[in-house]
């Protein structure tokens, strides 16, 4: 089966990609937690106890990791791991990569207001709230590299 045209992706693929990315962020956080444990054990092995994961710290760390991860992925290639698996790419209206600033803004908006994705289900052009605000689009793109100039959105 050949790759589809670069048309806007719907809520299901985008939701699945988001779920995969969420799992990856959680895995990264778990890795950070285990790494912190080892560091503590290394520097104070006598009075070692398992740290209580403070909710505030965890949430802020989650936001930080997620924003970093999404920004880097979208700015560099337009695709996170979830997007790679589902064959998606985040592009600007003219089909190019969205750049670091817009990637950062989009990442913050996506992490803080994840429900904005739901709008893609009802929007006529399958745009999330973040897409509408930042004039971006998520398209089907099964190719590994971005082919500028043939956007479907």
């Amino acid at each position, binding site marked *: 089966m050949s790759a589809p045209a670069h048309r806007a992706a*719907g809520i*299901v693929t985008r939701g699945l990609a988001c779920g995969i990315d969420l799992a990856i962020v959680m895995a990264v956080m778990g890795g950070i937690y285990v790494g912190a444990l080892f560091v503590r054990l290394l520097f104070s092995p006598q009075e070692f106890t398992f740290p209580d994961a403070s909710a505030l710290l965890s949430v802020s760390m989650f936001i930080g990791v997620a924003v970093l991860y999404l920004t880097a992925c979208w700015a560099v290639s337009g695709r996170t791991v979830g997007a790679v698996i589902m064959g998606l790419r985040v592009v600007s209206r003219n089909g190019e990569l969205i750049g670091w600033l817009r990637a950062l803004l989009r990442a913050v908006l996506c992490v803080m207001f994840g429900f904005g994705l739901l709008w893609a289900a009802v929007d006529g052009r399958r745009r999330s709230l973040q897409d509408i605000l930042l004039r971006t689009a998520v398209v089907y793109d099964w190719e590994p590299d971005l082919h500028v100039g043939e956007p479907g959105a």
Partner: protein
Amino acid sequence: MDGRRAPDPLHLAVGAAATAGGALQRVIGFGIDTARRLPGVDPVLVTLEERGTETLRGADELADRVLHAVLRKVVQVALQEVDLTTIVRDHVDLDVVAEGIDIQRIIDRVDVDAIAARVDIPQILDRVDIDAVAARVDVDAIVDRVDVDSVIGRVDLVVLADTVIEGVDLPRIIRESTDSMSNEAVRGVRTQGMQADDAVAGFVGKLFGRGHEPDDA
């Protein structure tokens, strides 16, 4: 004779008898020769000789007949008394005898086709109760007698396995299968996702009374 050994009485007796016989023969021969010279005696002698010859011949035939009868009787009795099979088995080297037999020539002379033509195989088969034969065969005992381990021991499994593995490009197969597997899986997920997207879009479109597909402009 060196004089130290005592003369053998038997030899002495035989020697004396031979000397006496020789003297008697010479005396008789001399008597006959002298008588022949006398007139009228020779024809009598010839007649006597012929008569003697005939008598001897008759005695010969009689002796032959008697001997035949006696021999027949003796052999018959001997065969009754003697177990010939045992004697042959004990004293005859049958292997050597068998070596001398040209089996190939015998086989050449036998017309196997003619024999086979006379054999009524269906009749034989009718008479054989295969089920009974099969029932008598103890398969377990046969299997018990087979030493599977020794059979396996004779097969060099390592060499066999090496040969098989050499013939198979395992890395290539694994690479191709995993490649195609992951490709197929990813393609399947993506295609299913797209179809689900379209289904959701269609459902929402109907819900809001929009056209069938969103315009992607």
